[in-house]
Each structure stands twice: as C-alpha cells, then as structure tokens.
C-alpha cells in the first residue's frame, strides 16, 4: 500500500485520489466527498512525518467508506432518503481503527439503500456504473466501494457483506473482496441489516493489503458483543504445504455462465499443477440456502429497520397530523421499494400462522447448511466456487424482477448463514472484457490462511 513518507506526502496522495474521483464523477461512485477534511488530515500527517513523529501503518492512505459506516464526516445515509440529515455523533469501531493508523477517508460510496440489493441500482442516488463496462451494474450492495478501488481512485474501501455484498461487486470489478468469519470485525457503528449475518470487510487490489487491513480492523470489541476473541493475528498462515481444495458438484451446471465455469476450471488446473489435491464435494442442502436466506434475513431486516420511524433521527415526513401518521408517512416516503419488500416479507414470515412454516423451517435449514460446511471442511482445507452464477449484468436487466435479482446471490449467501469466511479473487475476463471472479471459502477463523493461500491462485 502506498503510504505517506518523506518521498511522497500524504497531501499528494490525497490530492491524486480527489482528482481521480472527480475524473470518474459520471460513474456515480461517491455520495459525498470531503475534500477539505481529507486535505486537513493529510497535512496533519505530513507535519508529523516532518517532525519525525511516529505515524500509523496506513499513514496518508486515501480510502473510501461505504455509506452505511457511521462517522461524523458527512451524513451517513446508507444511500437512502430515510437517513437524510443524519450526521453521526459516533464513529464505527472499524473506522476508528483505520483512522488511528492514519488512513484518510476521501468520501462515502454509493450502495443499494440499506444494503438491500445485488447491483447498487436500489440506491436513492441512482446506480453506480461498472468499472469495466459502463452499461453494466457495479454489483452490490457495496458497488461504489468496489468501483472506487477497481478504478484505482483509492487504495482500499470498506464494505459490508450480509449475503454477498462485498464478494459479488469485487468479482464484478476484478478486485479482491473479503467477507471475514462472522464476528471477526466489530459491527459497532455500521447501519444494521441482518445482525446474525452482517460482516464487515474490505476491497483491495492486493492480498498483502487485505492482510494488513485485517490485522488492523479485526478483534474483540466491547461495543459489539458478537465479536469473537482476537484470533486473526495469532492464527496460522499458509506454509507452502499441499492443500485439499473442494469443488461443489451442485454448483457445476448449465445455470452457471460458461465463462465462469471455464474460469473455475482454469484455476482448478492451476492448483493441480502446483500439487494441490482437488476434492469433489456433494452439498445438497446448499441449494436451499437462498430460500432460507430470503426468510431469515428479511425477518432480521424487518426487526432492525423498525427503528427508522422519523422520530429520533433521519428523515421525517412533513404535515403528519398525529404520531401514527408520522411513522407511516416517514417510512412510506423514506424507504425504497426493495426496502419495503424485504420488511414486508420479514413481517410475513414472522407473523402468527406462518412462523413455523417459514421462519422456524429456515432456521432448521440453516443448521443443515452449517453442518454441511463442517462436513465439507473435514474432507478439504478450502472450497473454490463461483461467487455468482453470472458476471456483471446490464443496468436495468433485473431491477424490476426481485426473484431474478435474488438468484444472483445463490452461491454467496450460504457462507453468511454458516458464518464462514469467503475471499473473492479475480479470475480473468470474458472476451468482451467483463470481469470474472471466484471465491475461496474456508472454515471459521481460517481468514489469515485463506488470504495467504490465495496467492496460489494468481
């Protein structure tokens, strides 16, 4: 990662990033750019370096922040009208850790509102364009962050991944994207979507940068009781030994784009040529993962998003005559259609008469998925699969068909249900120059080894 030192100033790095952000303005990557604030921080770091004072491991590194991370700089809106005017008085733990090491946020990135979506088309601000093909989607929900890194505007960007929202946009834009083990990085100060599957992670251009960011951001946090005791730094890395890599038989079929199947085959051949063993896996419960996900996650969404009521912060509808109409008007005007679908599905699967048939059934399916991963990792060290069945699709192609959009998540969501880590890795391009990506999946707490092993796929 290019950090500030005596040869290059933080101010230079930040100015370059701001210029590039301006140059790519029509991609709709940023929802907010803090030129003045970023330059002020850069000058502070340059002064420290000039005085010979100690600076952090990310000194002067410009980065982009997904719009659902709380920070007092700019409104945190999760790209939704519902959070209009919300300037957070608190800072997310992950943001604080990055900035304590000298990283400089230049702006906030566009996303599907409240992270509901797989294309960044559900944003209140409109869609972000794909870095390789402007007629295609950026992927989502962390589309702006992925494109900011892919176009080399910033060195890294933050993301959140509830069902694929880091891995899928990373693969749609040809960069690395990590969804860590559930509980590895604090969720404190990130707008909640589904608390039992939300994970914080990063987009980078190199594996070394990913490792550095993980060592900085991971760890137990008293403000998030679901964080795991520190393990990342202490865990074993990759030591050049021959590994067993699983491939999932159920994911190799005609519904997967031919380019992606070929990319997977190439990487399998590469691993074999390096002496690694390929293990075929049967994981029959995984095909139910998406149905279970679109029950459990909307249920948590309906619960988490009930706090947005127009009273304490964010958008409040004008002209409401009483408290009930204030709630109704604010929520009806403030949420996007996809937010409404998910909240209503959540309330449906939780409502009396349907709870057992949907929510409880899905929670049991989750158990089968967790067990299936446990069994798989008794036969192999890591699993290599596509991230999604298709590469980046055309803007507008799926936005009016929610089930078609959900099907794009079919290969990514089961990791979130099981809490296991997944690293999206670039896997070439189609003949038309559209990015292809795969994901390397590991057992819980294998994040460090996963990142280090991924160099075998380069």
């Amino acid at each position: 990662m290019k950090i500030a030192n005596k040869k290059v100033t933080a101010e230079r790095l930040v100015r370059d990033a701001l210029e590039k952000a301006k140059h790519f303005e029509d991609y709709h990557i940023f929802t907010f750019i803090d030129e003045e604030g970023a330059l002020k921080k850069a000058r502070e770091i340059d002064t420290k370096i000039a005085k010979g004072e100690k600076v952090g491991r990310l000194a002067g590194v410009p980065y982009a922040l997904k719009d659902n991370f709380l920070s007092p700089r700019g409104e945190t809106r999760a790209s939704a009208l519902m959070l209009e005017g919300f300037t957070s008085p608190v800072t997310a733990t992950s943001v604080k850790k990055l900035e304590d090491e000298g990283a400089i946020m230049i702006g906030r990135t566009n996303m599907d509102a409240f992270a509901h979506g797989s294309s960044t088309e559900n944003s209140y601000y409109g869609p972000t364009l794909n870095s390789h093909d402007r007629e295609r989607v950026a992927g989502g929900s962390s589309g702006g962050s992925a494109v900011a890194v892919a176009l080399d505007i910033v060195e890294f960007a933050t993301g959140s991944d509830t069902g694929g929202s880091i891995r899928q946009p990373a693969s749609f834009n040809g960069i690395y994207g990590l969804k860590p083990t559930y509980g590895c990085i604090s969720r404190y100060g990130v707008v909640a979507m589904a608390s039992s599957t939300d994970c914080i992670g990063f987009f980078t251009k190199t594996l070394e940068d990913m490792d550095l960011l993980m060592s900085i951001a991971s760890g137990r946090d008293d403000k998030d009781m679901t964080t795991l005791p520190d393990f990342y730094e202490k865990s074993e890395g990759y030591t050049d030994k021959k590994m067993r890599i699983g491939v999932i038989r159920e994911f190799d079929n005609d519904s997967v784009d031919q380019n992606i199947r070929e990319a997977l085959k190439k990487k399998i051949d590469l691993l074999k040529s390096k002496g690694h063993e390929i293990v075929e896996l049967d994981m029959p419960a995984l095909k139910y993962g998406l149905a279970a996900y679109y029950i459990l996650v909307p249920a948590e969404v309906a619960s988490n998003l009930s706090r947005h009521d127009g009273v304490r912060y964010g958008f409040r509808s004008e002209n409401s005559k009483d408290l009930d109409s204030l709630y109704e008007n604010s929520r009806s005007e403030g949420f996007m259609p996809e937010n409404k679908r998910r909240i209503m599905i959540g309330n449906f699967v939780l409502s009396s008469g349907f709870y057992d048939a949907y929510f409880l059934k899905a929670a049991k399916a989750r158990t089968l998925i967790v067990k299936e991963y446990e069994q798989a990792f008794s036969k192999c060290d890591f699993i290599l699969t596509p991230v999604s069945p298709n590469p980046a699709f055309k803007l507008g192609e799926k936005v009016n068909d929610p089930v078609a959009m959900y099907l794009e998540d079919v290969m990514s969501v089961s990791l979130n249900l099981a809490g296991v880590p997944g690293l999206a890795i670039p896997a070439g391009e189609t003949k038309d120059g559209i990015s292809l990506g795969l994901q390397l999946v590991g057992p819980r707490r294998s994040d460090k080894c996963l990142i280090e092993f991924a160099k075998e796929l380069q």
Partner: protein
Amino acid sequence: MNIKREDIIHLAALSNFRLDEKEIDSLGRDLQDIIKYISQLDKLDTDNIEPTYQVIEMENVWRDDEILPQEADREALLALTKEAKDNQIKVPKVL
C-alpha cells in the same frame, strides 16, 4: 400460498407503511413471487433438526452493570431530531 389484497394491507400495517393502489398491486405481485420461491423449503426434510439463530458460538456475554462513558451525550443525540424542547423530542399529538 396465495397472497390476497387484504394480506398486503395487513402486512403494510404491521410494517407501518401506507401504500397507494399502485403499490398494493406491484408489491402484491412481488411478494407472491418471493413467497413462491421461498416455499421450496417445504421439500427439505428438517425432522428432528434443531434451529440455528446465530453462529457466534458464544452465549451470554456479560459485563459489569455500570454506566460507561458514551461517545454521544444527550445534547448530541437531541440535535439529530427535527424538533426538541426541554430535553425532549417533540412529535405531533399521540391521541
């Protein structure tokens, strides 16, 4: 199952949404499609399987019952609301 118009109106009420006629139609269609998709779970045998609600492998994370310093004070929180008076958030009439 088939989602009827009154089901959509009931779900909208549970969700605190006011829907217009167009939204009742379009959300009705979308929810029907989604429910049809998620109903495929019927085919999965889950007899004698316990449910999983979280994957954190921990239970009951305790801390001492004491007030810790908070990042945001009352003033900062009240500043986020549209209208505040006498250290209270002001809303339209309740009844």
